[in-house]
């Protein structure tokens, strides 16, 4: 699991997990809150919380990666570092852009 190729994609793996969790929470939430009062508001709060958490998580992971990996400086390491940090930037953009809707769109 600590293979460098897994490490440079870690932020996007986190994005995928966040995607699954948010989508599943939204669907499950709508399903079980159908007959309950106020449940939709609760669901929105939970989803907003999850979205903020995912953004924070991915950003933290990206920073951790930058510090952790590839302390040595062979060409291959520098290469992986560059690619990894670009992938992380893309993952951060993705995690913000994909889940922003939780703040204003109808959840169910």
């Amino acid at each position, binding site marked *: 699991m600590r293979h460098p190729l897994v490490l440079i994609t870690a932020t996007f793996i986190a994005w995928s997990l966040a995607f699954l969790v948010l989508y599943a929470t939204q669907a499950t939430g*709508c399903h079980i809150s159908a007959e309950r009062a106020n449940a939709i508001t609760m669901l929105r709060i939970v*989803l907003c919380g999850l979205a903020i958490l995912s953004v924070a998580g991915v950003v933290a992971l990206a920073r951790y990666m930058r510090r952790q990996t590839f302390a040595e400086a*062979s060409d291959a390491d520098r290469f992986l570092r560059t*690619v990894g940090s670009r992938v992380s930037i*893309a993952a951060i953009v993705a995690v913000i852009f994909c889940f922003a809707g939780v703040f204003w769109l109808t959840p169910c």
Partner: protein
Amino acid sequence: MSQTNRTNSEAIALHRQLEHIWGTKPGWGRLAAVNHTVVGRRFMLTALVFFAIGGLLAMLIRTQLASSNSAFMDAETYAQVFTMHGSIMMFLFAIPFFEGMAIYLLPKLLGTRDLAFPRMGAYGYWCYLFGGTMLIAALIGGVAPNSGWFMYTPLSSAVYAPGINSDVWLLGITFVEISALSAAVELIVSILKIRAPGMSIDKMPILAWYMLVVATMMLVGFPPLILGSILLEVERAFDLPFFDPNRGGDPLLWQHLFWLFGHPEVYIIFLPAAGAISTILPVLSGTPLAGYRLIIASIVSMAFLSFGLWVHHMYTVGIPHLALSFFSAASALVAIPTAIQVFAWLATIIHGRPRFSIPLLHIFGFFFVFVIGGLTGVMLAMVPFDWQAHDTHFVVAHLHYVLVGGFIFPMLAMAYYWMPHLTGKQPVQHLSNAAFWMIFIGFNTTFFMMHLTGLRGMPRRVFVYPPESGWETLNFLSSVGSFVMAMGFALVALDFLLIFRFGRAFRRNPWKAGTLEWAMPTPPPSYNFASLPYIDNRADLLDPEAIGPHLAAGKGYLGFVRHDRMEVLGVDSITGEPDQVVILPRQTYLPVWTALATGSFFLLMLFKLYWATPFALVAIVALFLLWNRSSAALEGGDMLDIGHGKSLPVHVKAASPPSHLAMVLTLVADATLYISLLFGCMFLWVSAPNWPPADLALPRFGLTLGAVAAMLAVAMGSRWSASHPAPGMALVLAGHLTAGLLLLTVAFIDMPAPSGHAAIASMVVVLVYAVLHHGIGTVFAGHALWSTLHRGPLCTLTLRIGRLWHGYTVLAGLVALVFPYVLDSLARTGGG
């Protein structure tokens, strides 16, 4: 003078010896071919045959639609024709063609002699050929699939498609998919482990990066489709109601599973083509590729994003806005990495001094067509627009702009570029230009019109339309265009024949490329390189003219033969330092036999001879066990000389041998299937009507407990076997056997009839999945035990690989045991 003569004759002797070992034998021996050059060529040729068939079907479609109320085909025929057109193009042409390209090219670009598992490649090819033949036979017999290439239920389920048609698709395509999965594993392992020494990960040619990403996508993209096909086939054959809303199933489950595969599939088709462009374009422009690292980062990001947008094919099924927004956002985002690549290519052209050539012409065709397809794609990614255009010919236009632009034009560029490599002949450009322009003009005429008919409301998949619809002129133009395009393709075929027949011979490296495939004679010898290079620069900025003769003279690594073995070097996946000598298996008929046995299983399923399927399964397992025999013979000598004063361990003794990685990857694909299954069952709970079922039942607690104990025995025995092989393996064997039997009892005795409700069907299928794994574990353990007792201690590699399987099985089994309890309690808390 005499010195060069000597080395020349030595080089020729070396060539003879290598050819004797690596070459495919004539006559029947061709069926035993495992060589990647041969297998790759077969894949590409077969794919082209399927392309011709698919193209013929397209012409039939266009003939039908050329006029209103056409009487050429009836509804049923039309349904079979468009379904087969789509399915052939996607599953039997596009994917296999690039698999073939990758199989043919990668070892050459990576500076080695073959892929990591040549027999798997051959097996994959036979599966592809037999599965494809099944589909074509059904087409000829008039019982081809007829529910569209995405086979939506309930149209494709037993109620509305009682015939054999859907089964042909479900079984045939799944059979072909075996080749896709085995290719995925083989390509990943080969790219990571089987490279020229010194080729660290930052020096890999760009095509290898593309293929690494694509193969990984295939590894996790195909399992959902395979799962969907299995569930639908199980529903059709044994009445387990996964997609039947009357009994707690949901047709939407199929759509989710299909598109979870289906969208990544589009990128799986596009990325290899893009990789070819990234390889060719810099050569033709005479300058290095702009933004190598940026491109790699974009394709990695693209791979992930492409898995988060499948629902954009389902915008109209009634999913809440918020959920739609996740997928819409990801759909819009994925355009960015694509755009980055397009700009990198433009930058490469601008930096360089492009020489006009036929491949470049096709690349121009790609740019033009693909960008238009991308723009209509962004339009369709927007929910409100999609609601208007959904299921109209606008979508047909879009998908062909993307697929033909993103795959056919690059493929033609590729074909013209590597034709000299494949045939040893250089093009004589007479027809090539005319052919291109006919395809290009014909294509745009055909499909531009479909945007317009689509916007005017013409639905896709209709076989007639009324004259007053106002679609006739546009449709007629479109059909005319398609015939021009078809003639263009015929010209390309003729052109290739002429090149093959009358092409000029040439000296090495006609395009002045910097990649290693040109550092060998053309057409390539079976072993590619007489000796292996040491790579100290990016592997697309090398000098084949200098490297070629050096390697041919046997001055690189492994420039000799040893015990008639096929040898390549394995490297560390990051640093590229060689760390083992990988001994490959020789030519063998096993792949073709195993594929035949596999095919017989699918045929028995197709003809509903279920009672005979266990025999086929036993045959498959037995044949696969025979594959193992040759690896046992490799024990012995510890360090092997590789030339230049270096020695390395043989792969069975190495720290990270290819087959270990292959097992890890296989388990990744396997786990993806399992997770999709678990999520699918949860999805039914969330969304299907008629929940909860009336008669939920739980396994007897005693049985569950017994199964847990048996699984723990497997885990313990597996650990123990490291120090005490025989008793350890015996424990594993007993554990697997007990656990499997107990789970089987739970699934078929404790549970109510699975045909009653999807909830029960889910539990049963999850349990059966675990049973199958215990079954295979039993075979592994039994085989290991038998070998230990009869042939002395097993090699540690076999034990390590076995441990991976046993560990995964225990994990999956425990989940399967808990699953009924989870689903039961969920179903009770909120069904509906």
